[in-house]
């Protein structure tokens, strides 16, 4: 194997495709990748079949970059399969690392989602009340669909993961650092997040002062001062609690950090950390005043947990009746 190029696999589970574009966004450097690796599986750009992977030896793939969250049986199946076949499994991008956008579905449950998507949404026409079934019999035989989970999970909640590469999508510079580390073999200890252990504020060139937030504004409501910390101007910015590595791109163009690089090293719950940060600097003396200021922040749960709800401490919303939600690979209900 010494004179052979290491084998690389790339896969997308529940994701938007942005991570794939990000790899292509390496531009000419993609050639370095192609030169350094033998790409053995990449369904987005080349025609591979699952059977090709199944036919591989265990551990035959040297590195697998896996993007996307785990939202259905198929995602989980591929996660297990690629884990088995790969020496190094990288959770690539915010969805596989923290659950990200698909993970926001954990604020609802499968039942509610199906109800909305297949019945209630204004654009739905479904007179026969058809909902997806795992198995349906048709004249031609049996049709199967992957089971849709009640709870979205991260890759690491399903299989052991060696490295995490944050970002929605990861910046080209971050991917380069990761690839170079893999090629050179100078890898951090397994389980590490590849990236700096400081937050976005460190990279952000805006002037920071002692903060006192009187109210929050939405981005369209004000023209922020170009040089002053956005949070101090009342614009939500998760940069205080988000791992850097992105170059503070969003704050530098006047848009608050949304938190896509996830929590800083050692932090258990990204949303909780953003919240303690901003709650600490509200210009309030009483609980009522604090509440009034927080009321000016729309959809706080969405702001705080945009990228890390499934791997937060609570993981998902409970049922209205306070009962625990079924989590994990329970298959979807059969219609009554």
């Amino acid at each position, binding site marked *: 194997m010494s004179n052979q190029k290491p084998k690389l696999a790339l896969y997308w589970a529940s994701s938007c495709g942005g991570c794939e574009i990000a790899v292509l966004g390496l531009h000419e450097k993609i050639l370095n990748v192609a030169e350094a690796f033998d790409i053995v599986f990449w369904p987005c750009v080349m025609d591979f079949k699952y059977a090709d992977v199944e036919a591989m030896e265990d551990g035959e793939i040297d590195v697998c970059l896996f993007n996307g969250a785990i939202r259905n049986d198929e995602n989980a199946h591929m996660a297990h399969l690629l884990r088995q076949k790969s020496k190094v499994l990288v959770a690539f991008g915010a969805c596989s690392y923290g659950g990200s956008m698909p993970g926001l579905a954990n604020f609802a449950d499968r039942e509610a989602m199906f109800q909305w998507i297949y019945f209630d949404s204004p654009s739905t026409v479904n007179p026969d009340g058809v909902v997806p079934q795992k198995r349906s019999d048709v004249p031609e035989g049996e049709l199967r669909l992957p089971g849709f989970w009640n709870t979205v999970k991260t890759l690491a909640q399903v299989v052991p993961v060696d490295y995490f590469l944050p970002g929605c999508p990861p910046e080209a510079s971050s991917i380069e650092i990761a690839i170079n580390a893999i090629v050179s073999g100078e890898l951090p200890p397994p389980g590490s997040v590849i990236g700096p252990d*400081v*937050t976005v504020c460190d990279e952000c060139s805006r002037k920071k002062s*002692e903060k006192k937030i009187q109210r929050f504004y939405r981005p369209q409501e004000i023209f922020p001062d170009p040089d002053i910390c956005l949070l101090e101007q009342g614009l939500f910015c998760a940069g205080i609690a988000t791992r850097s590595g992105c170059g503070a791109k969003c704050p530098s163009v006047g848009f608050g950090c949304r938190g896509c690089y996830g929590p*800083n090293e050692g932090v258990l719950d990204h949303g909780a*950390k953003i919240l*303690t*940060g901003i709650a600490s600097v509200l210009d309030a003396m009483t609980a009522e005043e604090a509440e009034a200021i927080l009321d000016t922040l729309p959809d706080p749960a969405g702001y705080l947990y945009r990228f890390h709800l499934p791997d937060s401490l609570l993981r998902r919303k409970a049922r209205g009746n306070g009962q625990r939600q079924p989590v994990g690979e329970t298959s979807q209900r059969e219609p009554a």
Partner: protein
Amino acid sequence: MSEPRVGVYVCHCGHNIAGTVDVEHVAEWALNLPNVVVSRENKFMCASTGQEQVEQDIKEFDLTHVVVASCSPHMHEKTFRNACARAGLNPYMFEMANIREHASWVHANDKDGATNKAKALVSAAVSRVIFHEPLEPMQVSIRPETLVVGGGIAGIQAALEIADAGYHVYLVEREPSIGGHMAMFDKTFPTLDCSACILTPKMFDVGAHPNITLLTYSEVERVDGYVGNFTVRVRKKAGMVDQDLCTGCGSCWESCPIRIVDNVFEAGLGHRKAIYRPFPQAVPKYPVIDVPNCTYYKSGKCRMCEKVCPTNAIRFDMQDEVVELEVGNIILTTGFKLFDARRVPNYGYGRLENVFTSLEFERLTNAAGPTEGKIVLRDGETPPQSVAIIHCVGSRDRNYNTHCSAICCMSSLKFAHLVMEKTGAQVYNFYIDMRPLHKGYEEFYHRIMDEGAQFIRGKVSEITDAARSPEEDGKLVVVCEDTLIGQQRRVPVDMVILAAGLEPRADAQAVGYMFGVGCGDTGFFTERHPKLDPVATVTEGVFIAGACQGAKDIPDSVAQGAAAAARVLGTISKREVALEPIRATIDEERCSGCRICNNMCPYHAIDFIEEKGVSRVNPALCKGCGTCVAACPSQVITGAHFTFDQLMAEIDGILVDVLSDQPIVEAV
């Protein structure tokens, strides 16, 4: 690091714990917890045998960590830390599980439940303790100078004790003279000493003491620094009199044409001039000009005082002076304020002429007061034939203050004596309970009863001048239910004295904030421990004494003043103090400089280092409260002894299945 070796000790606390918790079982069970090499139970861990057991085991079993499951760490954490230290183990390698307050006492009816909870608490402590790190106390040097704020009897006592011991004191007093409330009194209970006779020599000593710098007519504006090294900014208000030239002869105030009601020293009963000295024995003896009331500052004319001053000491253009003091310790002795009796409208103070407050009466009966000590009605000449003294006005009353003002029973008895002695009038005391509880006080109560004062037990509902019978005509009628005979009574009198309660100073909150001292429910300054540490506060190097800590009489104020002085002298003679090493530190390499933490610290311990763009904790100011640790969104502030790993391990440990010994959830 070699494998941790933990010793666990489960205390019976006599029956306190063992009566509910199965102590033997907990000790036996704990032996199965990871890293535990010895686990024992003991009747009284805090007794010398218990402590010696720990010391012996540390040596014999090579223990690296110790857990004692017993009472609250408030009680005995120090005890066991010291035991560890004696055996050569760093005292912070110890952890305490509270299975008394948290298990046996609160679950007395559920023995199994209490035992299981005790097991979970022990498991949490064992799990946590192996993450403990050895810590060393921080030594800071102590400047020998002391600041005393407030020149009442408590402050005077504290200042003299320290100055007599040979160390320098700055005594800051807001008014033009020291003396506080005691200077207003004629006699003091229970001995009826003349107040001035016992106070004046002390005031004089303060004024003349080479080790005391007296800053009267002054206030503290700002406090920086920490124990041993405070920097204090004091504003000396311009008194417009050059103290180097003034001899205190009094020509100026004799000639000053402006007469003003003196609401401070004379309690509104007497007058003073626009240039004044509050009372003849004032220390210092120099007058000050009350600028807002002086004609010259209003109209540009007069300057009478300047004309008559034989030494040309008047300086109309004098400015406030700001001085910076460097001190090692601070004692707050800012005293109390009298409850405003107008707040009880049914007692008629301010509306009914001959209703007086206690402080007014003190001035009335004082030989140096406005009536030269004659007890007379508001008309200034008629002596009363009958006097009612109402106890507990504004105290022990849910509508005003729930606390007992501690001195009013006794001052009311004193008033009864003075009225009977000076006027022969009939005196009625209206009380709820008599609480003469210090040395000689009960005897004083009996003496006043023997002298013929009447005592009526009941809360006065109203004082009125609406007569219902001829004998009530022109009198004040005190209406009350006499609870001893179960009857409504109306007692007509000529004069009423309201024994108004003692309240915190109006600015106690603000003053407390400046010095890092909290105010409790009643608004008085909060001591570090109500029983065991009554003159210390949560801020190291800041002490409290006298009536600012709670209502109290002169003997107690003096005792506290002396106690605070002793505490200060203790630190001065040691030259340095050891501070608890439980403090926050910021990992500067990883601080993003977001500045979220900057104004979080209640002790102003965090600075932003502009050049490096990072924040930094001043360890001497930090109290280890953990506020910033929680706030830092980068999670780069570590609270020593409360690290992330320690807290998570404690949580993991408490989630143990107490029926076996497996964790309930996997470690995160």
